[in-house]
């Protein structure tokens, strides 16, 4: 019989008296200290550390001094604590939830990261960490908006826009708000007689939008509307003699297209239709001395390109070509002081790298080398909590692209309430399982 653990956080009415609170860290449940703002989380588990990094042990005296508007909370545990390490996993989760709750109250102190309280006109602290409802509304309205300049400029990549928006909705468990038949029939109208898809109706076919179309259909479990062989022939036909892939008949070569071809055919279960060995060796030929990858041999490492190459190698079981420690160090150094990630050394952070860098770090099992909490905070800071959507940097204009990468990044960070996403297929894990394991 496993021991059980319980926990809770109590929000107090505005405190009148703020006494010093002393308690002895123990295995006894029931220590409650309440204030009204910052939450200090103290875990009374042997071997764990408190918010200041001090080691916990039974019998240690903990003194909490809540300042104006602070909450001090103590997680309580019941059960057999003969082996506290057993609870590490649970405690991490619990800290996580407490932390999210804390976001609703106000800013949070963790370790040394003390951040100024948000200005009053920033509404996120009223609504909780992720403004999920707002983002859903934002995506649904952007989808309908067709008349402003931005929408017209983006018209040629509407297929990718559909993939970003719909995947975001699925991660937020709101895909059912979309009219499936409408989307599917629109997608199919973008297919060209060659088998490839264009970015919109009447636009030329390109491998970029072919993947987006296949991903959108996979989200809805509608791959059966495709002539799989036709799409496969289009993609396989773009492989060049050296193993690389062109984006379309006009011959632009880039490792992005290698990933796209491999991912697309993996979703269609037709990877055997290309020369995988040559495709892999081309990707490997784009590896740099810093461990990263570029567009073509000799091209500079860039996080987006690294994602493409790492994912291409993942999907073909070829990760042994990567020096995981070297690439991992380069990638983890993309995290800047604000907690956000940049895409190349000495560049500004951008929410989209929450996807490119994070997914790459996950695929090579080095994601623990960055500080996840700071990154979560950075992404949440880039939300437009009034009108929904996420931008590249705090207070910039939002778009669907960054909204998707922000939400997908949070999913990779195991943010509560979001579906898990697969780092290589860039689709929700349940969709990938359905494809791969036929469920």
């Amino acid at each position, binding site marked *: 019989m*496993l021991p059980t653990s319980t926990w809770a956080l109590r929000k107090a009415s505005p405190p009148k008296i703020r006494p010093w609170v002393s308690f002895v860290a123990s295995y006894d449940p029931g220590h409650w200290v309440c204030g009204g703002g910052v939450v200090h989380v103290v875990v009374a588990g042997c071997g764990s550390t408190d918010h200041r990094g001090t080691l916990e042990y039974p019998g240690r005296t903990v003194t909490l001094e809540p300042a104006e508007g602070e909450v001090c909370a103590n997680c309580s545990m019941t059960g057999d604590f003969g082996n506290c*390490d057993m609870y590490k*996993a649970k405690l*991490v989760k619990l800290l996580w939830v407490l932390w999210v709750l804390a976001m609703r109250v106000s800013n949070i102190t963790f370790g040394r990261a003390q951040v100024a309280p948000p200005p009053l006109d920033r509404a996120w602290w009223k609504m909780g960490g992720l403004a999920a409802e707002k983002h859903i509304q934002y995506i649904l309205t952007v989808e309908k908006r067709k*008349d402003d*300049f*931005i929408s*017209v*400029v983006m*018209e*040629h*990549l509407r297929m990718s826009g559909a993939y970003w928006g719909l995947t975001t909705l699925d991660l937020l468990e709101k895909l059912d708000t979309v009219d499936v038949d409408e989307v599917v029939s629109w997608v199919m109208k973008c297919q060209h007689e060659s088998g490839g898809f264009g*970015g919109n109706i*009447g*636009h030329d076919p390109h491998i970029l939008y072919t993947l987006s179309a296949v991903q959108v259909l996979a989200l809805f479990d509608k791959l059966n509307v495709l002539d799989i062989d036709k799409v496969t022939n289009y993609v396989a036909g773009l492989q060049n003699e050296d193993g690389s892939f062109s984006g379309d008949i*006009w*011959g*632009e070569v880039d490792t992005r297209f290698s990933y796209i071809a491999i991912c697309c055919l*993996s979703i269609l279960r037709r990877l055997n239709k290309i020369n995988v060995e040559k495709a892999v060796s081309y990707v490997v030929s784009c590896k*740099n001395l*810093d461990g990263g990858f570029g*567009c*073509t041999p*000799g091209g*500079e490492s860039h996080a987006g390109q690294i994602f493409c190459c790492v994912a291409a190698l*993942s*999907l*073909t*079981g*070829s*990760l*042994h070509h990567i020096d995981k420690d070297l690439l*991992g160090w*380069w990638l983890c*150094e993309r*995290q800047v002081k604000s907690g956000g990630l940049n895409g*190349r*050394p*000495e560049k500004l952070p951008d929410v989209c790298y929450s996807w490119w860098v994070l997914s790459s770090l*996950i*695929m*090579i*099992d080095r*994601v*623990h*080398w*960055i*500080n996840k909490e700071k990154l979560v905070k950075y992404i949440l800071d880039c939300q437009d909590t009034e009108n929904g959507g996420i*931008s590249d*940097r705090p*207070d*910039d*204009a*939002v*778009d669907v692209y960054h909204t998707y990468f922000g939400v997908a990044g949070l*999913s990779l960070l*195991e943010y509560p309430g979001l579906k*898990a996403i*697969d780092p290589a297929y860039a689709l929700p894990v349940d969709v990938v399982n359905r494809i791969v*394991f036929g469920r």
Partner: protein
Amino acid sequence: MHGQPRKPPKPEDEAASAAKAEKLRNLQSQFLCFHHNNIYSKEALEVNAKLLEINPEYYTAWNYRKLAVEHRLTQSESDPDSDSDSVNSILNVELKVVESALRQNFKSYGAWHHRKWVLGKGQSSLDHELRLLDRFQKADSRNFHAWNYRRFVASLLNISEVDELQYTTDMINKNFSNYSAWHNRSVLLSNLLKKKAQGFFPKEKVLNEEYELVHQALFTDPDDQSGWFYHLWLLEQTVKDDAPLLVSSWPAHDSNLILLGDSCLEDSALSPFNTFHSELGTIPLVVYFNKAVEGVNSSTISVESLLNTKGELTWKPLSTNNSQTAQVWVTYLNYPDIKLHSSEFYPVEVSVGHAQGIISSSGFHYSHPSRFAFKVFVRPFEKDLAGHGVEMVSWREDNFLLYESRSQESNPILSLDQLNIKDDHEESSSEWRAETIANEIALFRELLSEINCKIGKLTLARLLIAHDTMLSPIANKMVHSEEVIELYSDLIKLDSPHSQYYKDERSSVLLQQITSNRETLLRYCFRHGDRTSSILGNSICLRLNNLSLSRMGSIEKLLWVQMLDLSHNELRSIEGLEAMQLLSCLNLSNNKLSSFTALGPLRLLKSLKALDISCNEIGSHSIDTTRYLCSSPLSHAEEIDWIPDETVTGDVNLTDYWEAFLIFKDLNLTQSDIVGNAIADEKFKSFLVKIVPTLKWLDGQELQLH
């Protein structure tokens, strides 16, 4: 959208935006109409050019221009009045359209590709291209499109790599904070070094100059990352051999292996480190290289022995994703079929690399032919003990006694030194290495005395490790290990967001320290008191528990280990453990393993019998970080043979447990502990019992036999 401030639209802005949108929409629909009707008139091309000037990302418009160019070139070919000038003028228009599009957005993939496509026709003059590039690279010295284009133009113009190297020098001298320039430099320089181009051989002098260049960047602003990765690359170039090297083996050189020895063996002349018991009827022979190699087979490694009577040996790469490249390779020597004299030693001699064929993944040949030898002593198998049956292995603390070694016995570390292959490098080269590293160490100590910076500490730690490794490339005598560990501990505090990186590095150093000599290693060797556990061929347990290890390392020195306690650490992965082919009992309890796929290396351990993974985080995480490091249907590395049998699957949906199925189906475990993982409910346990029919104990409970 990047870098646009978020602000509520003002009414006048909205009106302007609507007007702009209207204009663009008109252009787009006019264009699509021309495109769909294959109209390539002057008017159509002008509409297209206007469209691309506003929206260079409109890829179909670039495609259309290419169609138009081809159409007009065909026309001019058939026109008797046309000359090369008319072809040129067609192409020049294209170059101009690209230029104006790039002025609007010089990150436009479509525009850059169109320019390459036009130049690829081989009709245009390239003189203008470098000037254009200079302008763009001045405006944005980090634009990777421009750098890619520069490489393209340089190769069209046959500009020498030496000249391009000079260009990167100029760029760096202008502003050292230019990672793009450092990157291009590393590409060019490594090509020149590889080709041994004039002035770039020997590499010593070249590298010294590069060190000086990068020092300027690092010491001017240690927080600027531009030079960090270049310096690390130089360090690699300085200390690493290109050619792969054999670093260890099992059985070790000069060892006396006692085969079929039981755990009661107390012959003082024999070391328990070398006793080995196998039910499989084979002895594994493991070779461990310093880097992944391919081409290990019976012609590149010859084994001479009486034991191997069954013809050619088959070597298998120990790779977790079924690749044919691996750092560690294994083959199996058969037990003698003939009745061997039980009191004799049978010599085995292994020659590695006397025939060409062992090649590193970067294409370098194994160039240090080496030979190692060991003897096998076959001890009669005592039927009584064998029939005694297997008992549960207990990891209880009071079962362990610190191992007291006897001086005369052979030890597992010493033999590694004897394996040392003669270094045939030139004296001067190794002197240069030592001098360079010593110089670097001095410089970085100086830097740190002036400023407390993380790159200084990290580089110093790396340099000290490189120094120690150079002193003894195989035995890794760690002179500086204490200092390095302290540096990493400082870094954990100094740069807390990356603390886990430093923890991982520290764990590696700690393990190098522990395994660096016999005395330190023996402190972690225990005699397992539970004499009845006849799973073990010997009774030595290596206990690396409670050391805050976050990753494994130094496995090349632990190939002899049959019982390993790694409990109460912070391990997230057990990468590399697949090399420990003798392992039969493994305790991984109380670590941070978060999924079954993290146990992928265990699939290659055929003698594993007892596995404790209790109190980990399996089932607690929605994101699996080892999902693609373990071969599975996801990575197309293998398919799962689902067992449709209802009695096996019961009411369990196999898709929920595919990871566990993948890991456990090939293991012949007799005991396992999984309690304390979120996934380990009753349903899962009954699933596990069904897919591992050899299992006798689960979570300390004896299973009822069906």
